[in-house]
């Protein structure tokens, strides 16, 4: 197995970015992993949801399990255009949230696409840690990933998104 870097994006605008898109994703890997270091610009609350979709899909479903330091919580968004699945912090401090999204068998045209999200942030007295799934009932091979900051307003300056491809065979000349 090898992990190969595909692309990276860092938010540089002082007001943040309203979305992030990876397009023309190579079809040569077995799996994808997206590693995110981010927060939102809307400081009206301590955190907020973001969501993502593949290609031009219009309806997806997510289920989330998260802990908030006091209780376990669950939420679902079923067959909606914005299936929220990642909680990021919304703050003016130097605090950032992280998320690792795994998308398996993304080029397979016989399977609907499912992603697993591990994410969280801690603010020394508040924060969340979560596990989510997100399904898009579409068998099209994934060639683009769109991320929306939903009630974060924008992804804040300094937010970073790194996309990797994972192969299940050695890099081999055989």
């Amino acid at each position, binding site marked *: 197995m*090898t992990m190969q870097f595909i692309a990276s994006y860092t938010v540089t605008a002082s007001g943040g970015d309203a979305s992030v898109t990876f397009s023309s994703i190579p079809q040569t890997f077995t799996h994808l992993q997206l590693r995110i270091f981010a927060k939102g610009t809307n400081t009206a609350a301590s955190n907020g949801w973001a969501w993502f979709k593949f290609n031009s899909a219009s309806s997806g479903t997510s289920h989330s399990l998260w*802990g908030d330091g*006091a209780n376990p919580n669950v939420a679902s968004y079923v067959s909606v255009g914005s299936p929220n699945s990642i909680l990021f912090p919304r703050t003016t401090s*130097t605090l950032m949230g*992280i998320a690792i999204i795994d998308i398996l068998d993304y080029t397979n045209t016989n399977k609907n696409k499912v992603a697993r999200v591990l994410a*969280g942030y*801690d603010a020394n007295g508040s924060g969340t*840690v979560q596990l989510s799934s997100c399904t898009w009932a579409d068998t099209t091979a994934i060639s683009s990933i769109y991320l929306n900051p939903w009630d974060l307003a924008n992804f804040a300056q300094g937010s970073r998104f790194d996309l*990797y491809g994972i192969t299940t065979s050695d890099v081999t000349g*055989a």
Partner: protein
Amino acid sequence: MTVKRLSTSGSSVTPSTIYPDLLAGYGDFGALQRIAYQTVTGSTTTDVTFNNIPQTYQDLMLVSYARSSDANTIRTMYITPYYSGIGSTVQSDTYLYGDGTSAASGRHTNQDGVFDGIVPGASATSGIFGVNVFHILNYANTSTYKTSLTRSAADINGSGQVRLTVALTRGTGGITTINCNFFSGSVYFAVGSTFELFGVKASNA
């Protein structure tokens, strides 16, 4: 360069493998590269520490397969990132876990270490180890606090725990050290416990 595996008779066996560090544009081992590896060999090992971590990767990942001498079935292990001069009580965490009966969430604030690992203790069946996969993103940047995420699990055939932990290290310096311990002078890692530190590059060069 192509390296061919030989059969017992000495003839080459296909497929042959071209190691990725010899492929133009793919770098050493792609984006995921092993930095260091430690195996516990002494019976009184209280700490496993990775020092002088290169500041050249985008993220770090630490994979541990460990067990402790603690008398209980399950013991929390600390996986704590820091750098020289960071100060004390700058660590905090939020966790979610299930133990086969119920789920719960909790947190720690203003700590010296991060409670983010799970390992079996001495009363667990011999040979059972716990798995912890620790990620810290953008660890070398010098403008933000550091956030880490850990997946932990130990199953003892009738008991056990699975846990997700997010932790904050309140310091803006680049992380140069990761320490694994029990914050106890009398709890040790079991012989055979392993710790492997990887760097995740934002390039293939």
